[in-house]
């Protein structure tokens, strides 16, 4: 009984919608603190010692914008499925980068939201894994995007007025 209710909630498209808003906002929030200061963010990435010198600056300029655009698309439901895949891949990449640096014992901060940031560690990893679970839920159960539902109702209302009623 409780189990089936839980299952229904977990598989609900409404939960998927709520998570879309949450994950989308989260990524937009994370991006806007990095977009204005690419040099600082480049330093934060350099600390991970995984991205080659040549790609560093371009990555530091581009990555926050990918976060922003994917987050925005996820919220408004435009190409949401691709957006959630992009976000999922980013999360996996972040976790891998953090794990490698934890293995090296690198004394670095995350650089996730701002340049100061919290140190990397299991807390950060588990936060990202939780977020990854959210994206999986969205990928699997986000059915009708809410916007298309509204659009659908609006168009249905218009069509009804004419043929079905007057015969």
């Amino acid at each position, binding site marked *: 009984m409780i189990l089936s209710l839980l299952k229904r909630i977990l598989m609900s498209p409404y939960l998927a919608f709520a998570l879309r808003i949450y994950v989308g906002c989260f990524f937009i929030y994370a991006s806007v603190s990095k977009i204005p200061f690419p040099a600082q963010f480049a330093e934060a990435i350099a600390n*991970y010692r995984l991205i*080659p010198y040549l790609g560093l600056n*371009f990555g530091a300029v581009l990555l926050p914008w990918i976060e922003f*655009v994917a987050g925005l698309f996820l919220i408004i439901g435009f190409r949401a499925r691709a957006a959630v895949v992009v976000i999922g891949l980013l999360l996996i990449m972040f976790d891998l980068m953090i794990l490698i640096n934890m293995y090296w014992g690198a004394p670095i901060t995350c650089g996730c939201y701002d340049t100061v940031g919290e140190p990397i560690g299991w807390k950060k990893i588990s936060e990202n894994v939780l977020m990854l679970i959210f994206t999986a839920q969205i990928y699997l159960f986000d*059915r009708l*995007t809410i916007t298309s*539902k509204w659009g659908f109702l609006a168009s249905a209302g218009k069509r009804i007025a004419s043929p*079905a*009623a*007057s015969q």
Partner: protein
Amino acid sequence: MITETDNKDNLLKSPVFRNLPADRIQEIVRKARCETVGPGAVVFREGDVAEHFYIINSGKVRVFVRHNGVERELAIRGAGEGFGEVALLTGESRTATVVALEETELMIFSKELFDDIVREYPDISRTFMKEMRSWLLRDQEIIEEEAEAVIKASRMSWVDFLLIIGVSVLLALSFNHSNPNGIPLFPVAPDRSSIPAISVTEAKQLYEQGKVLVLDAMPPNFYQKRHIKGAVNMPMTLFDIVYLMNFSEEDKDRGVLVYGNSISRPYDLEIASKLMLRGYGDVKIIDGGLPAWEADGYPVEAMAAK
């Protein structure tokens, strides 16, 4: 108050009763009762037991079904039109919910009266059949639209990814261009061969003679974790402060050894070339840096050296 004549006129306008003889309509009107409902009032709900058929005298109602918590509108019905026949004809419970959209006057026919009329005038059945066919078509339309929406939402192609990356690149490039804090996208890597390098063994010898200043160019957090014993931390961000504390303008020939390099940033080259620009002639880079130094078992220490 609506009179019997008005009701009769309404029935004559209704597609259902249009073809009935006038005297019979008069009789039907007498047997039907009228009721006014306010906006938002529920006439009947999906699943209710069906007992009446309705003709709208004035006003408007909305017919809809609810599936998985989502409302699907089937029709808006106005004056002269009828509703509620499906459940009476099939003998099942109500298949949709009807709510008044404004103040609506309804003519209500009991199930018995409805059955009598249908039995007496088989032609009316044909009208109802057409009516039911239109409901069916509407159902089909909804199913198709919903299926299409599901496919649309779940379809995902490489174009979507291209779009996300493309929009991001476009925004990133244009913003970086106009951002006062913008950075060069593909900086030219400093030339490593332009600065003399020295092996760790040689470096160790100079280090032991105590004549050279050893600089750790890594960011402070790395320096604090581990560095060559006695080395001074000189990250780019603190260059000027460390310079003031450790260098003097008189002694430009002082030997300096710099180390600290990673795949992402040649910290050692940055510091060494900056020092050379300030006129220091004897600046060398320790080949292999800290890892090579450690591998040879030379002294290192943690935390800041005082």
